[in-house]
């Protein structure tokens, strides 16, 4: 019996065998596209390019709220982040990047696009230029963070001989990487469209903006690198000779002027709204015909690509979720904004004899300041989505004692009353209470005013601006100043400052290094420039010098680029409760250092260029280490 069964089975196997043929077995895959299919039409190739765009590297972006607000420009009002204000600095590996997989994919794209036969010439040229733009952008990112890196411009292939050592490449000089970025920019800028309406794909404007920034970075490293002789390597992988500075500054000015004069389309400063602060905030969320924005990472609701920046940073009171308020701009940063007469002054909390100054309205203390302050920061007394923020720390009685609460909007009975009433704002500030405005301020930049943007299930489609016209003006101003053309520099600065409501124009004699650095700090705050600006001017170790800040020191030297900024300070508004006196219901302000702020940040010489991992150096001993690590 068994035998019969076996023989039947065997026979049936034989029958199956004979049924097969090539057409049955050789199936086309249904879950991946073949190379041939990808390069058969521009639409398919564009989707590959879309993936490469998505992998563009930013350090500070709306997708990473801590990286965008570091360096004590803000306090982080989230319990899990307090440690960052208790430690003393950053790891040598911080801000590191080494994604050669991305570079390989870009190189492969360029190689295959070049060999593609069924693409029309126009699409092919544009795709190639875009991929080269992305590759140059990533090398720019690498050189900013790591210094000179191996310049790999062809996809490397392993021959399986058992000896991969021929694939090892040494680091290029820092200047060589910058030269590569500028050379690529020159090659591709005229192959890309000059279109101001195209924001999320590479355009001529984006290339010029990148080139002006890159040339400026290289120039300042060459000029200011002499101040930190220990931050160099003998092979030039880190550090650029000072003789090259002028050449790079000329290039930076040239690229910026090309863009300003309209060679890449009609870019201009955003000036659509009469309220100057609202106008400044709108640059970052107005996506309709925005003439200022050059290149962005775009987001779209209900497409799967949205971000939660508004969710995590919206004012806590009346928020659309039970969270928000994480980035609290520091008093140090708020005080950096000038008064309208171009003078620097701390926010006046006390008169010269030490008595507090009484204000009728909570927002009066911020009067006559640069309009960008209220455009960047949500101040006490201002509104978001039509609702006033409720930032006040408590009541101060006539005898100077404080009545406050430890919960948002806590209630207590005031002396002489019988009913409990609110004694602290629903937005705080309460020391150590997360998501409240612990410094007395919230961030406004990038906050999306549309309904639902604060909901986790909806999120926001506000774009992240990588390059904008305002920065190009500042690049031009800085390059012109360094080249000794102070009047030209003042001209560029003034066009930007006029938009901020600063009516008194600067003259050439007003322009100095501190002015330039200050303008970039307030105009480009929370846009991912802070780290790179401090690094290229070689002043990071002076600003973040590891010494704590005293309240008196906080108010001095506000105009200095190297002003110490190691700890965030707070400004807390208090209401006066003293019935039948002149000061009843008025406001006073107190400068506070939060109890969670115990460390003072120190930027080490070894932080100037991020550590290259030991695994990378083990695999490729030709890679030299970065200095001072």
């Amino acid at each position, binding site marked *: 019996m068994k035998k019969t069964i076996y023989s039947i089975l065997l026979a049936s196997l034989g029958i199956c065998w004979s049924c097969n043929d090539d057409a049955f077995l050789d199936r086309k895959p249904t879950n991946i596209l073949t190379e041939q299919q990808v390069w058969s039409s521009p639409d398919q190739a564009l989707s590959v390019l879309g993936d490469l765009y998505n992998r563009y590297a930013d350090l500070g972006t709306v997708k990473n709220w801590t990286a965008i607000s570091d360096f004590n420009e803000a306090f982080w009002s989230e319990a899990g982040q307090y440690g960052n204000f208790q430690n*003393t600095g950053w790891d040598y590996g911080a801000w590191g990047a080494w994604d050669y997989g991305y570079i390989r994919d870009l190189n492969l794209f360029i190689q295959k696009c070049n060999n593609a036969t069924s693409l029309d010439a126009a699409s092919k040229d544009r795709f190639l230029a875009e991929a080269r733009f992305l590759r140059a952008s990533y090398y720019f990112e690498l050189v900013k963070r790591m210094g000179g890196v191996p310049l790999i411009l062809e996809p490397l292939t392993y021959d399986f001989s058992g000896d991969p050592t021929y694939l090892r490449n040494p680091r290029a000089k820092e200047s060589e990487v910058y030269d590569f970025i500028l050379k690529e920019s020159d090659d591709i800028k005229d192959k890309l469209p000059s279109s101001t309406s195209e924001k999320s794909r590479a355009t001529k404007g984006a290339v010029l903006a990148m080139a002006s920034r890159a040339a400026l970075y290289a120039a300042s490293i060459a000029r200011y690198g002499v101040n930190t*002789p*220990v931050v160099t390597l003998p092979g030039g992988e880190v550090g650029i000779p000072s003789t090259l500075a002028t050449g790079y500054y000329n290039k930076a000015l040239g690229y910026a002027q090309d863009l300003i004069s309209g060679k890449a389309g009609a870019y201009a400063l955003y000036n659509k709204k009469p309220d100057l602060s609202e106008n400044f905030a709108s640059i970052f969320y107005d996506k309709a015909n925005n003439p200022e924005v050059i290149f962005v990472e775009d987001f779209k609701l209900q497409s799967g690509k949205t971000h939660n920046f508004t969710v995590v940073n919206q004012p806590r009171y009346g928020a659309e979720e039970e969270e928000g308020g994480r980035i609290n701009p520091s008093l140090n940063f708020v005080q950096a904004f000038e008064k309208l007469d171009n003078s620097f002054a701390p926010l006046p909390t006390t008169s010269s004899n030490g008595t507090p100054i009484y204000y009728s309205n909570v927002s009066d203390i911020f009067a006559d300041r640069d309009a960008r302050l209220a455009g960047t920061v949500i101040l006490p007394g201002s509104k978001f989505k039509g609702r006033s923020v409720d930032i006040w720390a408590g009541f101060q009685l006539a005898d100077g004692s404080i009545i406050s609460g430890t919960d948002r909007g806590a209630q207590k009975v005031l002396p002489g009353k019988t009913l409990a009433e609110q004694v602290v704002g629903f937005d705080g500030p309460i020391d150590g209470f997360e998501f409240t405005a612990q410094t007395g301020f919230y961030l406004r930049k990038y906050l999306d005013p549309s309904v639902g943007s604060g909901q986790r299930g909806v999120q926001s489609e506000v774009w992240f601006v990588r390059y904008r016209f305002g920065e190009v003006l500042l690049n031009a101003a800085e390059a012109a100043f360094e080249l000794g053309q102070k009047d030209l520099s003042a001209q560029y600065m003034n066009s930007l400052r006029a938009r901020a409501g600063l009516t008194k124009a600067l003259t050439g004699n007003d322009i100095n290094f501190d002015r330039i650095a200050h303008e970039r700090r307030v105009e480009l705050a929370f846009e991912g420039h802070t780290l790179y600006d401090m690094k290229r001017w070689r002043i990071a*170790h002076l600003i973040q*010098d*590891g*010494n*704590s800040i005293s309240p008196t020191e906080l108010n001095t030297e506000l105009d200095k680029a190297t002003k110490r900024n190691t700890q965030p300070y707070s400004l807390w508004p208090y209401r006066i409760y003293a019935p039948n006196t002149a000061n009843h219901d008025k406001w006073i302000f107190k400068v506070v250092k939060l109890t969670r702020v115990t*460390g*003072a940040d*120190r930027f*080490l*010489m*070894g932080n100037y260029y991020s550590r290259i991992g*030991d*695994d990378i*150096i*083990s*695999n490729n001993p030709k890679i030299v280490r970065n*200095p*001072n*690590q």
Partner: protein
Amino acid sequence: MKILKYFVVLAGLLLVACSKDNYVAPSITLKGRIVYGGEPLNLEYSQVGMQLWEPGWGKLAPIDVTVSQEGTFSSLLFAGKYKLIIPKGQGPFMTKAQQGSSSDTLYVDLKDNQNIDIEVTPYYLVRNAKFANEAGVISSTFDLSKVITDANAKNIERVSLYINKTQFVAGSTNIAATNLSGANVTNLTGIKMSVNVPTINPDQNYVYARVGLKISGVEDMIFSPIQKIQYK
């Protein structure tokens, strides 16, 4: 009953397996000090780092060794042949050639617990620091001595008197400090500085104090020994 027996045997097997699987822990201590003329240097806590390299294991990665405030270090290691290096730019001192070679790499053949003193040349030293308390004001008198005077000599950027609640006293950990810029240091001996003790919460009747010297162009500071002072 049988099940219990099996269970006991099984549990026994597990225990055995555990001890067989694990690696032995490192057990040899390498201790030492950073010294000049036999005296340890006073540094900032956890700011001066050294690296131990043990070649021969394929991928290379250093073992970091940090130096304490009193200039001591210690590391728990396996026996082996190590190279001890002080990376460039670390410490307020210049390294010396080691063991008769031209390089400052120190070869350590670690077989048993070992104590080593690494001789270096500091740019400056803070000497004879004396601290006194007068009604909540801590004052200090001290001398500076310039050790490196040749072409490698460096200037004084500033001198700071720090006090702290705990014995970790430095620029990043202090409750009060006074600074004297290098330009105002005309005479290296008999320098006097003082600092007010702020209100300490919770209250304590002592502080720790020391004097630090920042050398221009050098990241790490050099200090005087730490002293505990009763101030009330």
